């Protein structure tokens, strides 16, 4: 973990709700895809956790969905703003049990978090399928970005407004050697119930600290109480007691 100032390079709307933020600063603590940062948002007491979508050199990319006061502020910050970040938080995904054809399933604001993972898996020579699941067509983002990396991208919408009408669980029908998923807890729970092969699920929880000190983010797992911020946010399949 590192606490360092970052400069906001770009704040780009991807949809009406989701902004992509590119930030420059010391990224040395960011070591694995699926890790997250804690951002000190002007006007808010607690930091806000966001997955690192990508890291390249001294630049971090975050995708922030506007859902409340903190994210509202972040999405309206101008380029040039300075933000205080805790970086290098959480375990991140491991590529160890990916097999040859990993399937990545992202839901809603969890889609962005799969970008860095996708890049790492492709670099390791895997053939990656990314299933991106949204409520409706207006919420779709990151399809082109993931395609540009070289992944086979499948889009699912609940209302059928774009791509295949369906939900994350429908994507499990795609052939795959392993599953990586990030999205709402109900989606993760449903996937975990159906999937029997190697899986890694990235969870969210309301956090006090984000670095293991407060026990604010604890969940129950088969192995006992675990902190989402420190022992996760990525947990293996069949570990979490939903």
């Amino acid at each position, binding site marked *: 973990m590192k606490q360092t100032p970052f400069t906001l390079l770009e704040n780009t709307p991807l949809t009406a709700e989701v902004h992509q933020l590119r930030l420059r600063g010391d990224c040395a603590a960011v070591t694995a895809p699926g890790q997250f940062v804690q951002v000190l948002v002007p006007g808010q*007491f*607690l930091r806000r956790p966001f997955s690192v979508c990508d890291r390249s050199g001294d630049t971090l990319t975050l995708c922030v969905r506007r859902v409340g006061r903190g994210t509202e502020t972040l999405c309206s910050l101008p380029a040039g703003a300075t933000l205080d970040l805790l970086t290098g938080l959480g375990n991140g995904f491991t590529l160890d049990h990916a097999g040859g054809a990993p399937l990545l399933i992202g839901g809603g604001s969890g889609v962005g978090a799969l970008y860095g993972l996708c890049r790492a898996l492709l670099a390791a020579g895997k053939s990656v399928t990314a299933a991106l699941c949204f409520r409706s067509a207006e919420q779709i983002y990151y399809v082109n970005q993931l395609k540009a990396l070289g992944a086979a991208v499948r889009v699912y919408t609940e209302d059928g407004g774009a791509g295949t009408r369906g939900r994350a669980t429908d994507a499990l029908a795609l052939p795959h050697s392993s599953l990586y998923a990030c999205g709402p807890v109900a989606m993760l729970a449903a996937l975990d119930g159906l999937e029997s092969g190697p899986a890694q699920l990235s969870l969210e929880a309301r956090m006090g600290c984000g670095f*293991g000190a*407060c*026990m604010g983010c*604890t*969940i129950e797992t088969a192995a006992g109480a675990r902190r989402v911020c420190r022992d996760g946010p990525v947990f293996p399949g069949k570990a979490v007691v939903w």
Partner: protein
Amino acid sequence: MNTNVTLCGIPLDNPVIPASGTFGYGLEFAALYDINCLGSFACKGTTEAPRFGNPGPRIAESAAGMLNSVGLQNPGIDAVLAHELPALAKVFHKPILANVCGFSIDEYVRVAEKFDASPQVGWLEVNVSCPNVHGGGMGFGAAPESAAAVTAAVKRAVKKPVIVKLTPNVTDIAAIARACEDAGADGLSLINTLLAMRIDPAARRPVLANGTGGLSGPAVFPVALRMVWQVYEAVRIPIIGMGGVSCAADVIEMLLAGATAVGVGAANLRDPCAARDIVAALPETMARYGIETLSDIIGGAHHGERRHHRM
């Protein structure tokens, strides 16, 4: 410039003490900075058996503060002595405050006895005030008789100084403070969190799964300061003042109100280096207010008739 204070006979390099539940058992912070710069710290509230605590969400936000309903999640006293404290010994070389919790007087005594035997423990901070656990903490700290009963029982069983940590969720905190002093407490720490809640307007239900939780952070500082002030006038034993402290000037205010040492809680969660930075800023802040020796100002805002305080 001199930042030393003495807490129940044990010297501290400075009065800054990260508060229980916001500093774990010290290790996460030791990875970030040398925690030996601190006066001491209070470990997570520890019970006899391991506890999972309350269901999530356990954290909510408020203006200038936060709510928690962690519910005393901890690995239990035996695991703390076997794993956490030995790991801490490698990185922290000062005595700590052991935060003792229990659901019966016997449990308080058993946990306190085990901590008392650890050479790493300097003080027993007996938490009679956690508002999160049904039938536990709140019950003991809410009335002078039960707070005194826990204090007396723990006091009989241990050799180290006993500091009773009080809840602010009472009508007359000074009466409870006096009862603890009369029962043999060597010191008091206050305040624990204020019982509070938030409601999610979209879901139309409380944000915290537990319904209610404890408010802390800068929002509570003036309340905490007022209570330290009142308790200082009611007792002669030393006080650890806490509640919303987030800068060195807050430390000075707490000392002037009557605190001998100062706890820093929620600030550590927002900014993991907060306690270190407060320690570092003490000398320049003392200089700004013309303070040469920090311990000279303890209770310094009280004028008129004052009781003689012990250290």
